[in-house]
């Protein structure tokens, strides 16, 4: 598996570290439903068999965080973009 880093080009997956699902939004700790919202945020995952948006860190390269869309059934990578400042793709 190779990931096409926008800075470094196509690099072996061994250079990257995997965090997990992208697009999880940290809940507001002051909200009334904070306990259940944090439970969902920390533990619950969609875990799809198909396209999955996920975060990879290019530790052995430019040290950027990437938002990668990858098909979990085939490992085919549809896109890899730099994570924006606000944490979204």
């Amino acid at each position: 598996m190779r990931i096409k880093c926008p800075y470094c080009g196509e690099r072996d997956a061994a250079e990257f570290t995997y965090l997990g699902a992208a697009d999880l939004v940290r809940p507001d700790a002051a909200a009334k439903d904070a306990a259940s919202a944090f439970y969902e945020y920390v533990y619950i995952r969609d875990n799809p068999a198909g396209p999955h948006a996920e975060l990879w860190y290019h530790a052995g390269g430019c040290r950027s965080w990437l938002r990668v869309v990858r098909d979990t059934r085939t490992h085919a990578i549809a896109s890899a973009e730099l994570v924006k400042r606000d944490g979204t793709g």
Partner: protein
Amino acid sequence: MGPRSLRYSLFNLVSQTFAGNRGWTPAWRKPAPKPAYDVVIVGGGGHGLATAYYLAKQHGISNVAVVEKGYLGSGNVGRNTTIVRSNYLLPENIAFYERSLKLWEGLAQELNFNTMVSQRGVINVYHSDPQRNAYVRRGNAMRLSGADAELLSRDQVRELLPFADFDNARFPIRGALMQRRGGTVRHDAVAWGYARAADAQGVDIIENCEVTGISIEQGRVRGVQTTRGFIGAGKLGLAVAGNSSHVAALAGLRLPIESHVIQAFVSEGLKPLIDNVVTFGAGHFYVSQSDKGGLVFGGDLDGYNSYAQRGNLPVVEDVAEGACALFPNLARLRILRNWGGIIDMTMDGSPIIDKTGIGGLYFNGGWCYGGFKATPASGASFAHLIAKDEPDALIRPFRLDRFARGAILDEKGMGAQPNLH
């Protein structure tokens, strides 16, 4: 009930020899699904088959179907590296896996099937003082919970593994924690043995039948849509391992699970070399030798979500490096086969066996890379849960709501990061 599989015994072996071996019957029937069952189990892996067997045997519920989307044993039960042990740290885990180890010890007689239970001992090598302390703690925890554990000195390890690299500059071997009652069990035989014994009790095992929908009416399960039509179910048990998330999603459930891939390897055949199960303490590598002579080994998960049943080369390299660091004499060994399996990694690395909040729907999963050893205890406890609608004491810690309650069972203290467990 169809014809019972002929009992495996010396008497039948001899009489069949004289009868030209024409009287042997298939190990299980291939029935068409009935319109409805008291209990339907989804997933014909070790856990589903064991559950069906104990439902019939212990609880007298034999109007049961096991519905399997592929052929029997096509999932992780036929893909794992066959290691059984109870060398855990947390008391909840030790108690459960120790129950399983005790059931393994009598399983061949129980099932009248040679499951090739081989208590050859599991050796966890350590390389440093802190690691020794951690293993002493683990060994004491095991002994306090009634499991066996023994701390081996460097010389004792040398007697068992004279060819290991004791003076490796970075990872010298200082000793080991050993569980002598741990070992290996022939994994396919576990699937076949439970299938045959369940079938003999009247359980229908329905292969090539994928569950595509779960019918729920007024908060209670009614049955399943399958590729072979609708099957009614009084109660429904899910035991689909790596596919837990999307099968549970058919009932609207969302789980604290990620599916990952883990790989395993078999080498060319060798003369007897490694008598035990051995794990490297300074990297991800573990190994045993099969009766055919091949070394069966593996290492860490690949580390990313996957349903592909195959992994990538970085792990192959990592495992090979671990192998050569521990046993330099393996450097020229050729690998014959390697494969991957989809494992259901929970957020704390421990399994889930529980009711679901939907009437008559029960969930068994989250076995991570270590559920083979759990097969008999998981089947017995899941059958109890389904029959009585109450968890037994062993599985009470494995409830689904433990994450919301903060009562997680994090063996390794890694936090909610499945690829680190």
